[in-house]
Every structure is written in C-alpha cells, then in structure tokens.
C-alpha cells in the first residue's frame, strides 16, 4: 500500500499514532494511500490486532465468535506500521519535547502525533458496590467478562444502568443469553438524546412485552454486595430494593485522555481540533471518540462517539499529516456530522438521525405504515422547510423482514445533511 516516496518523517522521529481502533486504522490507511513512506509507530494499550467496540455486545450475547470482533482481517498491517507497541497505555504526551512517554519510561519522539485513544465507560452517580465490581462494555476484556457473566446460568437477573445506545446493546446481549433484564434510567424515557417521546414510549412498550423491566425516572441510591455469590442488592430512590446477579453500567463514555496533561493540547469535552483534526499543539492531531468536532445539527463542537465519524476523522487526519509532511497544505477538511444511530433489540429496530427536540420553529410529524412508526422533525432553514431529524421504529414481521420505512433511513439522513452542508 506504500506509495512513492512523497513524505518522510523528519529527523525528530516517526509519525506516532496513539491507539489502534477505528480512527487509528483509518488514519494509517490514509497516510499510506497519500504516499507517505516514512516510519510509523503505533502505541496501543491492547493487543496486536485492532478490535471493534461495536461488536463486543454481539460477542458477549453469543451472536458472533471472538475472532469476528477484529474487522480488519484483510489489511496488511506490516505495510502500514513499522513499529507496533502493544499492551502499553501511553503515560504522557510532552508536546514541548515532541515526545510520548510509555509506561516503562521509554520516550518516543514524533514528527507528527495522532491521538486516537477512544473512550472509556463512566458511571456518574452510581453508588459503590464493592467488593462486587459491576461490568462495563468497551474493550475485548470487558466483553469477555460480560460474556462469562451471562453465559451458562439461565434466567440471571441483570440490571443495566443507563438507557443509552450501549445500554440497549447490553440489554440485547442479556436477552440473547436468556437473562432477565431490568433497565434503569433517571429520565422519564429511554434514549433521551435521540428518541422522540412518542417513539421512546412505543419502544418501552415493546421492550416490556419482551420481558424487560423498566425503572425509569429512578436512580440507585445504595448497593450492598452479596456474600459469596456474585451481584448485589440495589436500593432505589423510590424506596424499592432488588437483588441482581449482575449489574452493567452503560451510562456514557468519556475520552481516554488521562495522559494529556500538557496544557499545549487544549481539551474541553474532548480534544479541540480544527477541520483537519489539528489540535492546538503543533504537529499533534486527534480523531475519533477523543476529539470534539463539528456537530452540524447543533452547530457546536462536541464528541459524537460513532464509528463512522471515527473512520472519517481518522482518514482526514491521516491525509492531513501526509500532506504536511510532504510540505503541502491539507486540502480535504472534515465536514462535520450529525448524530445518527441504528439499534436492534431482538426483532426491534430503532434508527435515528439529526435533532428531534421540539421547540420554536420545529414541527414534528408522526406517521405509521407497515408496522413502523416514523417521526420527523422539520425546521425552517434558509427560508425552506427542511428535515432536521427523524426516528423510525420498526418490528420485524414473522419472516424476519422490516418494512419499507427502514429502506428510507439513508435518504432521510442525507436530506438532513443536505440541510446543513
């Protein structure tokens, strides 16, 4: 894949990529496709083969095997990377010295640095459960723990704390393993940031019909670990107490940036980047779940932790690094994105894109066809009524097929993007 000798890293070191996930792999490909032939070092806290966090719930639920969680089987990593440092969580970035510091104290100089270390799950406000350790889901190690916990014992009771996309994916894994799942959320409805209340209500009903217990508008106030066995008894703010075999926290994620203590790299919600994924520190780039980029629907710079964004930002960063090393200005900026989602829970498919918040100037239209509920949000932009958000909720028919409404989701998403671009 290495092209002609267009770019070379300077004497100060190679191109160093921190992390080995979607954004990193995409950047590596773009770097080589642009003809960069100099040395590349990748530092990851994980193993030698990159995995997809998206696949972890499918693996934990038993839908796919371990080997299928590594989606880049066809890539020739030897052509992309000269030095792959594994099991090595980077300790620090020293932007002044243009070096990264590894846990063994080793320092690696860089000509250009890409931070692509993704995110980790957080559990704001969930009470301590020690000595029981609740589960989370992001890495392959997390997936192995969840799989082990769900495997074997039938009818295990599992509390999924959090009603986000990841929460629903964990819920599906539980149901696939024959578990009894309870979903806990502080809001009145699930998927607070992406589902319109009409759709959320319907989805909640469908989940209850499939045996899921919902504890909405509730919070856990304390948890007491069980003696000898796994799990804990959780007390809720409505006075209820319930025993669970397992608790899975799916309350959101934060960028992996503990090693960025150097104030030269500006960090707010994520690393602040320009449209070529350049940070405030010279020669340092960031992409994927660590970076806050343009959310077209809100007009704000924020972290939209989605696979496709990570791939596209990584590509943009890789191409920009190659261009700068070849002495050219980068030309293809990252255009921004809109939040978008597709989530399955068994025979249910929920998809959404854009913004659905009701407000002045926004008009909500709901329709039902072929068993699917569609809610669309329109707003007047540039003097025209334009689609700015949608939800489609569909249930597969006996034959396992979703109706025509689902065939429209890509066209809706494009229409929303066109409203902003």
């Amino acid at each position, binding site marked *: 894949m290495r092209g002609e000798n267009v770019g070379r890293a300077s004497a100060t070191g190679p191109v160093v990529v921190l992390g080995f996930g979607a954004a990193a792999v995409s950047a590596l490909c773009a770097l080589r496709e642009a003809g960069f032939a100099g040395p590349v070092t990748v530092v990851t806290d994980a193993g030698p083969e990159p995995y997809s966090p998206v696949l972890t719930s499918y693996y934990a639920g038993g839908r796919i095997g371990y080997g299928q969680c590594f*989606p880049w089987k066809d890539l020739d990593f030897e052509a992309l990377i000269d030095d792959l440092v594994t099991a090595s969580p980077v300790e620090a970035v020293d932007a002044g010295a243009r070096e990264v510091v590894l846990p063994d104290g080793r320092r690696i100089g860089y000509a250009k640095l890409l931070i692509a270390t993704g995110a980790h799950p957080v559990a704001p406000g969930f009470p301590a459960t020690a000595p029981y350790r609740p589960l989370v889901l992001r890495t392959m190690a997390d997936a192995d723990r969840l799989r082990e916990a769900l495997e074997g014992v039938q009818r295990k009771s599992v509390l999924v704390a959090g009603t986000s996309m990841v929460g629903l994916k964990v819920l599906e894994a539980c149901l696939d393993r024959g578990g009894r799942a309870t979903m806990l959320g502080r809001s009145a409805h699930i998927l607070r940031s992406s589902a319109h209340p009409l759709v959320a209500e319907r989805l909640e009903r469908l989940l209850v019909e499939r045996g899921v217990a919902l504890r909405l508008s509730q919070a856990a106030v304390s948890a007491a670990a069980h003696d000898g066995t796994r799990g804990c008894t959780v007390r809720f703010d409505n006075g209820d107490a319930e025993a669970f075999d397992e608790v899975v926290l799916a309350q959101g994620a934060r960028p992996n940036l503990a090693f960025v203590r150097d104030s030269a790299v500006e960090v707010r919600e994520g690393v602040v980047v320009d449209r070529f994924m350049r940070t405030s520190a010279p020669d340092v780039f960031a992409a994927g779940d660590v970076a806050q980029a343009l959310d077209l629907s809100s007009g704000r710079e924020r972290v939209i932790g989605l*696979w*496709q964004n990570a791939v596209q930002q990584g590509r943009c960063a890789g191409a920009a690094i190659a261009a700068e090393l070849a002495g050219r200005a980068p030309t293809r900026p990252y255009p921004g994105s809109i939040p978008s989602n597709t989530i*399955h829970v068994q025979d249910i498919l929920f*998809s959404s894109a854009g913004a659905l918040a009701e407000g002045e100037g926004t008009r909500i239209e709901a329709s039902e066809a072929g068993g699917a509920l569609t809610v669309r949000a329109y707003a007047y932009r540039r003097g025209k009524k334009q689609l700015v958000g949608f939800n489609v909720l569909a249930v597969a028919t006996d034959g396992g097929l979703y109706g025509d409404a689902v065939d429209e*989701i*890509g*066209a809706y*998403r494009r229409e929303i993007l066109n409203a902003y671009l």
Partner: protein
Amino acid sequence: MIRKSLCFDAKKCVGCYACAVACMDQNDIDVVGDGVAYRFVAHVEGEDGGDVRIAHVSMACMHCEAAECLDACPAGALHRDEASGAVVVRRELCIGCHACAMACPFGIPRFGRDGTMQKCDACYARTRFGYGPACAEICPTGALTFEEVNDAADAKLKRFGRSLV
C-alpha cells in the same frame, strides 16, 4: 488501471425489467421466497410543458467512489474488490446492524430473512473473466451499459453539450 463501470441512460430506459430479471437469474434470487432483489426499476412521473412524462430508472448499488457504507460498517462485512472496484458484502460477517442502510442515500442495502445485508456486487464474478454484468448484457435498449469510466464520462459530456446547442 482503467476500470469499467455500470452506466445508466434514463432517456433510453423503457422500464421493461429485463435488467431486474437478469439480475435475479444471475444471483439465484427467489424474490417470492426468501430472496431480496438487488436491482429495482422505478417509474417516475413528471410534467414537462403541460405534458405528462414518465421516466424509468433502473437502480442498484452504485459502488460509489467515496462509499459511505464502507465507512459505516463496523464489522468488516463490506469491502471494495480491488480488481473491479465493486463494493462487495461478505454476508458471513454481517451483523445486520443497518449502519450501511443509514449511510446509503439511495436506499440500496436490503436485508434478507437471515438479517444480513444483500446488494448488487456488479457481477464481479463475471467481470473478472471479461463478461459484462448480467443487467447490462441483457438490456435491449442500451440504457444500461458497462463501459470504461473515461469513455462513459466522455459520452456524458457530449450528451450535455448536445443538450446546450
């Protein structure tokens, strides 16, 4: 390498469905049973100076150069076949997540009863041996053709030029 690609001229399409049938035959698709059609023919009505006009559009995956479905697939189930340039699905890796359906503005990804995505692969099994895609080979009016990309772009430019004079 000069690549060939499928080209469509709406002015020549009569909506006969020969392309859709040839596609089903080539790919052994039983749409009455479990199959999902890869090629569709849409009939579009419009008005032109008071006259009603009907256009027919034969549609399948366009194997876009910047294919968003490739970026969206988190499972490695979609890849570009280097030789033909076709965007190809590996159904055994597809998890049925519909991320490709969300990414494709043309509504091309369709899902079978097994939950996996299915779509046109530009007959790359035929084209690698020098045959054209089944749909283009059968088209009786020359609306669907399999042409070298440069020739197709050239013909398009000429058509546009003619429409101006």
